[in-house]
């Protein structure tokens, strides 16, 4: 193919112009800059888990529930049908259906069991969420993004533990006066919420609010992947059960009866 002197010069000019435009493109690229720094204080784990030693739990104590409610601005609606709960008390037969029977030990029969999201290793709520508003973090915590939730409630139908609550109404007016924690957002009408294993506290190097509030040593929180962790020690020494393990969700909350 013949190239005239004229077309050669034209192409060279275009190339030079292209080089001239490069710094402008760089400037645009810089506008995208976003840097983050790792937080040295944050608690990290391969797989977070909670052990509940129910033998140490006092019947009339609700310290963990109150601490959670306060930390996460959980409204007190006074209507059980629309209630929002992260930690709540359940009877043995409701917490562990399938293993209960009529001759079970009297102590266990009347013992309230603190129950919460099990942060399953195989979470059915995550599988069904159509918008990935809930997902499993690398450290095993099943997390929620309230910004993204569309309120379809598929996760509520999928969760076999009833750990998820829907906001039927704006929760703000139902947060008791003076109990508002300004550091944690309230939720809005139309989103689903549940226990988040206090990710906001772990990021600051603090234990979950429920664990910190318990004065009887019922709750142990730690890393299942670390063989020297407190949870592994407790689980290795005592016999523990999980809620509905037959469903294959692999819950990460263990109970010692």
């Amino acid at each position, binding site marked *: 193919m013949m190239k005239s002197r004229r077309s050669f010069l034209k192409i060279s000019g275009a190339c030079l112009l292209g080089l001239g435009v490069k710094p402008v493109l760089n400037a645009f690229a810089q506008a995208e*800059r976003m*840097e*983050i720094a790792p937080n040295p204080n944050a608690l990290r784990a391969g797989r977070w888990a909670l052990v509940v030693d129910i033998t140490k739990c006092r019947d009339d104590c609700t310290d963990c529930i109150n601490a959670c409610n306060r930390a996460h601005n959980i409204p007190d609606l006074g209507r059980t049908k629309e209630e929002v709960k992260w930690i709540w008390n359940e009877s043995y037969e409701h917490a562990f259906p399938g293993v209960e029977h009529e001759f079970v030990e009297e102590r266990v029969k009347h013992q309230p069991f603190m129950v919460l999201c099990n942060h399953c290793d195989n979470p059915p709520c995550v599988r069904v969420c159509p918008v990935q508003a809930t997902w499993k973090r690398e450290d095993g915590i099943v997390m929620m993004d*309230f910004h993204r939730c569309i309120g379809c409630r598929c996760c509520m139908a999928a969760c076999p533990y009833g750990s998820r609550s829907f906001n039927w109404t704006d929760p703000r007016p139902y947060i008791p006066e003076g109990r508002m*924690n300004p*550091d944690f*957002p309230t*939720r809005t009408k139309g989103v689903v919420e549940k226990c988040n294993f206090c990710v906001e506290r772990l990021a600051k190097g603090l234990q979950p609010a429920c664990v910190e509030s318990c004065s009887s040593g019922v709750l142990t929180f730690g890393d299942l992947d670390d063989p020297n962790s407190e949870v592994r020690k407790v689980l290795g020494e005592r016999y523990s059960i999980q809620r509905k393990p037959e469903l294959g969700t692999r819950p990460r909350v263990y109970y010692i009866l």
Partner: protein
Amino acid sequence: MYDGGKIIAGLVIFLGVVTFPFWYTQANEEAIEKPQLLLPADETECVEPTAYMRASHMQMLNEWRDFVVREGQATYLSSTGKMYEMSLTRTCMKCHTSRQEFCNKCHAYSGVSTPYCWDCHVEPKESA
């Protein structure tokens, strides 16, 4: 060109009408009052330069949200080399204490609807 005069006259009128809002506001610049924003008293610089914040705070807030909620990262390294916690209530609203006097005023001036941040995030109590 047939009816050239009419066409050109029509075009001039059309352009005049279409650009009316622009030159009218230019001519009456004085009449529109710039919002008097309540700036923090004890802090002189924001996490990024003012021009960047004015133009891109919404993108930045969205990125902060995604980093904090979805990736569990909470510390922002600014272009000035300082570290900030990525938090609307604990970082932004610590200095810009009044949503009414800062956020809302400028949003009203620019005709941008108030975002729904405060449907959930707790704004600092207005002292007034």
